[in-house]
């Protein structure tokens, strides 16, 4: 017998936790489903219990507050649990979720759904990017932060955006050697146009300044308009090739330099996890500067489907503060829709969030413009570079499949297996879409959204829900 609920929140990061708390404060029974061992998401990732927390006390305190609040309010959390399917229930306006995880039921039915699926580091294919020693900035940070393990000896960071400075500074503090930090975007006078969006963001600017100072003091050079274009090595990274980039991020020939490092950290921003909103059939919009899709939402974070909300980085990358505000708004809206908040109270509570929402959105918008990914970046992959890491499909194989008539992600997948591996296209999908757009002379807008099919995460075939469906 499937349990019928009023609200399920998917994801226990900043947005999901705030959504759950806001709804629970309105006396709603809330169930949260999260894919990791403990709530927190990436930003509030909890240090493994036997390890003591380090210098992240301020952040840790905020996290503890949120965990405590969820507990006080009796929010039920299924950790280590994957949502592998979502579809309309027989009862109109309700949704079915299929779950896989210890202690979680096989399925749940719910009247409303807040999707706070979060984000992951944008993968960028270039020659050598599959070599051990090439890691995303997020991966390095998590290892340092939650386990105090340095994943190499001699580091070079290449990417764009503020996370790079943070990871570089954290590596220095941990005692690692950082050879250089490369920022793919150039800074010039034009960046002063962003000053209004920075006004009032003193805490964030201060944090950025601290990272920058740490790098300066350690003598780590910060190069603008330069990026790694190749990683080389037999079994692991031994050296990387860097080059200057022109304004659309195409490497400039003749500017190459070779640097001996054993670890290359790449941080080209983030991609929102949109599998669930795509699977459910929500409308999506394209964000050209960031080459990604986001679910279309109204002011209350509701998607094009009534009762389905999307909040936080999974609906467009905007950072922790914006995620928390969006989560609270979604939680309040869901509570009002099911009669747990009267219209006037809800209006007041929602109005309180608006100034911070506007401020954080301005800041997020500024970051997406300042640290955009130029179209030239598609050209980094050579003919024999793997685009699909899982199934080991090269750029050339994908281009050939397109020349033979594949005109969509699904046809490229059928012909080459690209996107058919365990990551299910999360890593390669956006790049194949760009190759398609380039080769067919189309707008990437028409290429990226592919059919998402369950299971949206790999699960063992012995999972009972799967066997029941046989």
């Amino acid at each position: 017998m499937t349990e019928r609920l009023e609200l399920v929140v998917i994801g226990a990061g900043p947005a999901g936790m705030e959504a759950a708390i806001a709804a629970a404060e309105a006396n709603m029974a809330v169930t949260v489903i999260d894919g990791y061992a403990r709530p927190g998401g990436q930003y509030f990732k909890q240090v493994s219990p036997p390890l003591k927390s380090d210098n992240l006390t301020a952040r840790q305190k905020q996290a503890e507050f949120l965990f405590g609040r969820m507990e006080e309010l009796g929010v039920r959390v299924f950790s280590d649990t994957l949502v592998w399917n979502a579809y309309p229930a027989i009862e109109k306006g309700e949704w079915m979720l299929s779950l896989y995880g210890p202690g979680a039921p096989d399925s749940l039915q719910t009247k409303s759904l807040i999707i706070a699926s979060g984000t992951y580091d944008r993968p960028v294919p270039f020659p050598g990017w599959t070599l051990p020693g090439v890691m995303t900035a997020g991966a390095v940070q998590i290892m340092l932060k939650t386990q105090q393990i340095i994943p190499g000896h001699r580091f070079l960071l290449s990417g764009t955006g503020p996370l790079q400075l943070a990871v570089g500074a954290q590596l220095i503090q941990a005692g690692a050697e950082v050879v250089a930090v490369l920022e793919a975007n150039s800074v010039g006078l034009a960046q002063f146009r962003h000053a209004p969006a920075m006004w009032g963001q003193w805490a964030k600017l201060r944090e950025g300044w601290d990272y920058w100072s740490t790098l300066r003091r350690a003598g780590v050079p910060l190069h603008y308009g330069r990026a790694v274009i190749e990683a080389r090595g037999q079994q692991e990274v031994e050296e990387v090739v860097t080059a200057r980039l022109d304004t659309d991020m195409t490497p400039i020939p003749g500017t190459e330099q070779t640097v001996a490092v054993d670890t290359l950290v790449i941080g080209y921003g983030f991609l929102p996890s949109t599998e669930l909103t795509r699977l459910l059939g929500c409308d999506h919009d394209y964000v050209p500067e960031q080459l990604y899709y986001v679910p279309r939402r109204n002011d209350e974070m509701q998607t094009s489907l009534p009762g389905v909300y999307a909040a936080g980085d999974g609906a467009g990358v905007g950072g922790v503060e914006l995620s928390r505000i969006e989560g609270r708004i979604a939680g309040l809206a869901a509570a009002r829709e099911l009669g747990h908040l009267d219209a006037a109270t809800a209006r007041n509570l929602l109005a309180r969030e608006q100034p911070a929402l506007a401020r954080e959105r301005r800041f997020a918008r500024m970051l997406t413009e300042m640290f955009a990914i130029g179209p030239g970046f598609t050209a980094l992959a050579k003919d024999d570079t793997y685009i699909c890491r899982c199934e080991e499909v090269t750029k050339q194989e994908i281009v050939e499949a397109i020349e033979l008539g594949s005109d969509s992600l699904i046809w490229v997948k059928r012909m080459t297996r690209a996107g058919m591996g365990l990551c299910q296209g999360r890593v390669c999908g956006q790049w194949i879409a760009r190759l398609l757009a380039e080769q067919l002379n189309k707008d990437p807008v028409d290429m990226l959204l592919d059919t998402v099919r369950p299971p949206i995460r790999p699960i063992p075939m012995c999972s009972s829900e799967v066997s029941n469906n046989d």
Partner: protein
Amino acid sequence: MRVAQSNSNLPVIERGQPISLQVNGQLVSAYEGETIAGVLFAEGRRILRHTMKDSRPRSIFCGIGVCYDCLVTVNGAPNVRACVTPVTEGMVIETQTRERK
């Protein structure tokens, strides 16, 4: 490698209870609370598997369980994500080679 107190500017580092486990038949010591990836990296062992098609080395890439590149065999079960799986006392870990399990 694990961050050394003497070598870092971090406040006091406290690790979990020491435990032992097996990696490709070798006895390895670790601390409770670490992930499989953490333990293997601390040992300097960054190659976690070789791919099935082209037998190329792979390791941690995304670090948060999205890319499925860091797969290892744990207590006989293949394709476990090293980056998100905590180690336990007596765990038997094998790196994966190209032969299909």
